[in-house]
């Protein structure tokens, strides 16, 4: 649903900006892993595409608020960083397939890279309410870019931090410490949100331990609700066939083993409908429009 929300508070959190927006309809329907898309630049903007952000937190204040945490990257996030309390913001959401949560209590490791951690706390909450054990592994390039370390320490059974420059926690990457955390926690499942390279690494660790990994991916998006076909990644279906699937509606959360991380940014030759490939579904003709 589309909501014109009012900005309640803005704050800086190390390298990030956080915006809390009154958006009752979205807050109400929210489940961990959902994202929202934000219109940028006001009525006479030169930026016609929305920007996607995970929902960090929802609170019941003012009928329901959502909090976004973001890094300034390009023109849109720069604009967003200039919003002040009482400005209005046009949001669409909640969007996407949320994190699936286990029916029965189990041990979960939550892995966050950079601002990716932001979407893990609502998930941790839900998991703990269901009696799950939660352990955190959070990493980033440097200390100021590790998001939510304090909150993780408060919530998690254990919290392990890594930075590439060693300015906080262990020097290295989340995948360096993940095996030990999984082993110690006797984890049943891993949830991960962060850069693609990290998700790929976390998935590989999961495969090694033979436990499922739920990853939340980030691909360039124009619409966020399934109509533009710009956000696809190669994913292996139940039937073993690779398809280019929309990460906004079929994701952003996928089973890590199903995502062909190494082929992101390409059309794998064996994907359904790949140029020159066999057309596995339908199609008397196999001749492709170049």
């Amino acid at each position, binding site marked *: 649903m589309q909501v014109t929300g009012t900005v309640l508070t803005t704050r800086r959190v190390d390298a990030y900006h956080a915006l809390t927006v009154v958006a009752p309809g979205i807050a109400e329907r929210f489940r961990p892993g959902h994202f929202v898309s934000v219109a940028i630049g006001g009525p006479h903007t030169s930026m*016609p595409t929305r920007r996607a952000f995970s929902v960090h937190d929802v609170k019941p204040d003012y009928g329901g608020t959502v909090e976004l945490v973001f890094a300034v990257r390009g023109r849109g996030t720069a604009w967003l960083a200039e919003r002040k309390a009482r400005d209005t913001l046009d949001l669409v959401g909640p969007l996407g397939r949320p994190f699936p949560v286990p029916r029965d209590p189990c041990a979960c490791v939550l892995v966050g890279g950079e601002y990716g951690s932001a979407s893990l706390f609502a998930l941790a909450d839900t998991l703990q309410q269901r009696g799950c054990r939660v352990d955190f592994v959070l990493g980033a390039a440097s200390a100021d870019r590790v998001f939510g370390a304090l909150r993780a320490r408060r919530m998690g059974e254990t919290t392990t931090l890594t930075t590439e420059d060693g300015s906080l926690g262990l020097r290295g990457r989340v995948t360096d410490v993940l095996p030990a955390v999984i082993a110690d926690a006797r984890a049943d499942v891993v949830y991960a949100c962060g850069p693609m390279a990290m998700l790929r690494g976390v998935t590989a660790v999961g495969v090694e331990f033979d436990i499922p990994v739920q990853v939340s991916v980030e691909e360039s998006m124009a619409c966020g609700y399934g*109509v*533009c*076909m*710009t*956000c696809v990644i190669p994913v292996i279906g139940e039937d073993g066939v690779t398809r280019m699937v929309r990460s906004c509606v079929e994701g952003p959360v996928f089973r890590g083993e199903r995502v062909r991380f190494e082929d992101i*940014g390409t059309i794998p030759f064996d994907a359904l409908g790949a140029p020159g490939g066999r057309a596995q579904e*339908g*199609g008397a003709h196999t001749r492709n429009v170049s």
Partner: protein
Amino acid sequence: MSVDMRTYLAHVELANPITTAAGCAASGAELSQFFDLARLGAVVTRSITMAPRAGRPTPRMAETPSGMLNAVGLQGPGVEVFLEGELPRLVERGARAVVSIAGGSVAEYTALARRLADAPGVAAIEVNLSCPNVEDLGRVFARDPAASAEVIASVRATMRYDVPVVAKLAPDVADIVAVARACIDGGADALAMINTPLGMSIDVDTMRPALAAGTGGLSGPAIRPLAVRCLWQVHAALPGVPIVGMGGVMTGRDALELILAGACAVSVGTALFHDPYACLRILRELEDLLKERGFERLADAVGLAHRPPGAGPRHRIDLEESSL
């Protein structure tokens, strides 16, 4: 009093002039979560191909000033799956379905027309001519009047006589009127314009093209002046031909601009990415604008900006083709 918003694609009546633009509403199912598709003049489907297509690699989109580039590459399920699932579901939902088709050769367009000829619920066929012709070194059909006419003639001959064939044209040609005329001579019942002109964007940080495919189609408000100009020229040259206008329509005012230039229906593409309700909002705004201006029927506004100027000297239109 409400405005009579009905419009016609050849003999096919649409309840109102607003449709989705080809390739901008996926299967239709996504939008139908937000509103009843039957409220649209028509749903134009993505361009259907014979075989399933995986499309182009990502990144497939980049934002540009008041526009966006896309290189989706006609990702879609292929005509068989379309006929089994997408099309019947659109029909069930009460939507008027205009089916867009895309091919790499005249034979492929013709084969698509043959597969669609007996399908129930095809209100019209829109022929996407912005495809590379594999038999002509990948030269895009829409850039060649003769190749466009050949495709249209073959599709027209194959489709049921009572299903209008709409030729969809691209603006990046030297003479849009020549292509339009060739399509009409080839048997097209109507025209649609404009498809996306080819554009490109380079990321100055990575110093590489922003799209994996390099180039992509430019859409959104940035191209509206090109759309208005193409509509104007073609409506002036072929005043009796129904034209579906599109290109950067975000509001009812934008839709009215295209209608005044000569469009009898208006498709909405990029605006849908910003707002799932864009089509209905634009329809409402358009109706209000027509009402404010005293129109009783949409049809009376079509091409109205071409009328001979009033007394005022401000309005001498001099149609020289140079931009300078």
